């Protein structure tokens, strides 16, 4: 009867086999020292921490991220009136807002900071995708994780770039800041007619709750049968032993059908990626397909209407946003940077 530690002999630390692909990268270093933290064995997780691969992609990604962080810090300090401790105290309220319209901000405080930080962090996630691509190839994985990451980038780029472009103003993107991001979620939904009625949003919620449900199911199933080795999933895919058989039979008897050690991971993957893909499409559709999702729902019969609707909330097909001229609502910056 295999134990859960069977593949972790306590003595040697695992290091990746050297490969010519590693040395092809001038910045290709496995950094740090692999350490063993025995306390983790209590949690029944792997006890080795480290090493981590640096690599050119990783270095570039980290540098971009840090550059953006630096500019964020400068902008935050500026907003706190130059006082470091005020900034610390009100850090949640720091808000680097995007400019109005679609052009380059005319000053740092009126959207310049936002554009710079967002630009750096966009590059950072793209470089990270490169890192992912390269490491997956090196370790001969099929690139599922890359598609998942790219889907996540799809969603964030829709929110920060494509949707603002489509509706004609950067100001529809979230501002950079803790409370600001939270408020954006609220304000976006209020502005666009209540996103609960966006069918892609509904699909995304289905996938999100479904993901948690699937983790509950799959995690519980493996933990329940792990005494018979079901957690050695690669081995079980080749040859189902009693653990996986019991896992499959549990679900067959419960709900009439079941997955297998490999196919369950298809379910998991598609539900997880479904969340970000649906959300991305939903945000793309906002402001283009309609400017009021409740009204859209009424028009398409998916929504129980509560009463007659006024002109302002009637479903309006692509309505271009007027350029925001005049006061942006914030105190206009008097000094120029």
């Amino acid at each position, binding site marked *: 009867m295999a134990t859960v530690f069977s593949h972790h002999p306590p003595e040697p630390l695992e290091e990746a086999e050297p490969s010519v692909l590693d040395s092809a990268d001038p910045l290709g270093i496995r950094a740090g020292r692999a350490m063993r933290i025995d306390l983790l064995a209590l949690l029944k997780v792997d006890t080795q921490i480290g090493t981590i691969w640096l690599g050119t992609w990783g270095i570039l990604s980290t540098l971009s991220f840090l550059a953006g962080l630096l500019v964020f810090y400068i902008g935050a300090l500026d907003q706190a009136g130059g006082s470091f401790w005020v900034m610390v105290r009100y850090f949640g309220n720091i808000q680097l807002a995007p400019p109005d319209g679609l052009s380059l901000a005319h000053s740092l405080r009126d959207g310049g900071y936002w554009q710079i930080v967002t630009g750096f962090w966009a590059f950072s996630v793209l470089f990270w995708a490169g890192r992912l691509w390269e490491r997956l190839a090196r370790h001969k994985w099929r690139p599922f994780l890359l598609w998942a990451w790219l889907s996540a980038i799809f969603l964030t780029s829709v929110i920060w770039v494509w949707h603002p472009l489509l509706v004609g103003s950067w100001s529809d993107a979230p501002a950079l800041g803790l409370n600001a991001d*939270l408020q954006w979620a609220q304000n976006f939904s209020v502005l666009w007619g209540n996103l609960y009625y966006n069918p892609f949003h509904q699909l995304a919620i289905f996938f999100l709750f479904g993901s948690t449900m699937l983790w509950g199911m799959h995690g519980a199933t493996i933990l*329940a049968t792990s005494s018979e080795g079901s957690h050695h999933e690669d081995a079980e895919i080749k040859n189902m032993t009693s653990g996986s058989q019991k896992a499959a039979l549990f679900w067959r008897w419960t709900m009439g059908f079941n997955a297998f050690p490999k196919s369950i991971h298809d379910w998991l993957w598609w539900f997880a990626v479904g969340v970000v893909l649906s959300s991305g499409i939903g945000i793309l559709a906002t402001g283009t397909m309609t400017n009021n999702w409740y009204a859209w729902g009424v028009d398409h019969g*998916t929504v129980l209407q509560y009463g007659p609707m006024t002109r302002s909330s009637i479903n309006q097909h692509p309505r271009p946003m007027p350029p925001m001229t005049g006061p942006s609502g914030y105190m206009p910056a008097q000094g120029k940077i």
Partner: protein
Amino acid sequence: MRLSMSQSMETFERDYKKPGNTIFQALLGGVDPFDVWLGPFYVGFFGIVSITAIVLGVLVILISVGQYGDWDLWRANIPSPLRQYGLGPAPFLHGGAWQLVVVLATVSFVAWGLREVDICRKLEMGFHIPAMFSLAISAWVVLQILRPLAMGCWCEGFDLSFTGHLTWVSNTGFRYMNFYDNPFHAYAVLGFFLTAMVLAMHGSAILGTYNTDPDPNVEMRREDSFWRDYVGYSIGEYGIHRLGFYLAVYTLIMSDLCIFTSGTLVKDWVQFWHPF
């Protein structure tokens, strides 16, 4: 016993289909008359209870929707009772149907969970799955039963319908001003997003490495090596299932808390952060 993915399960299922070991038998002794299979489904005493509750519940739904007349799947609605009925029974069309369906649904969920326990006993596996399922139905119970009880009227439960439950969620959020300011909600949302991310990671890991090498130890080492290169840590094949399981547990607990405290302890989540 060798088995590839594509072979049918009936070949080994026979070995596991043993009578006995059910809760019914443990409590009442003797022979369990429901200890049979119907096709792939296990029946069991609790299976009978569950399916009966489901059938009755569907009947109530059909009658109620029929009374209202709107059969459209998106719009057909079974509303929760009006406020004036408080915690008492309501007439059928003004909440009584809702009350019946909620009771029957809860009975069927609990019975389903106990049936899962029966199956676990038969298969001699751990009880993690029914434990997780109990947490899932706890969300239903908190929303439709415990919170209305705490708030003093059944009207606090959500309408049973597509639009109805959506609008309920939206209105309940705004009833407490800004639900994003509810810290339990924020923790739950974090839990949901983390769960989705970790799910994608685990799915990608297995789908990325299965059957790339005849030796599963090599495949597993490839997994570990990749994760260590990529993020500096590989949690391991047992650990990842623990992580996912407990993330789901954490998320559900936070969700329960976020809705249970709204309206009972806190009536304005914006003010919650600066009470004075």
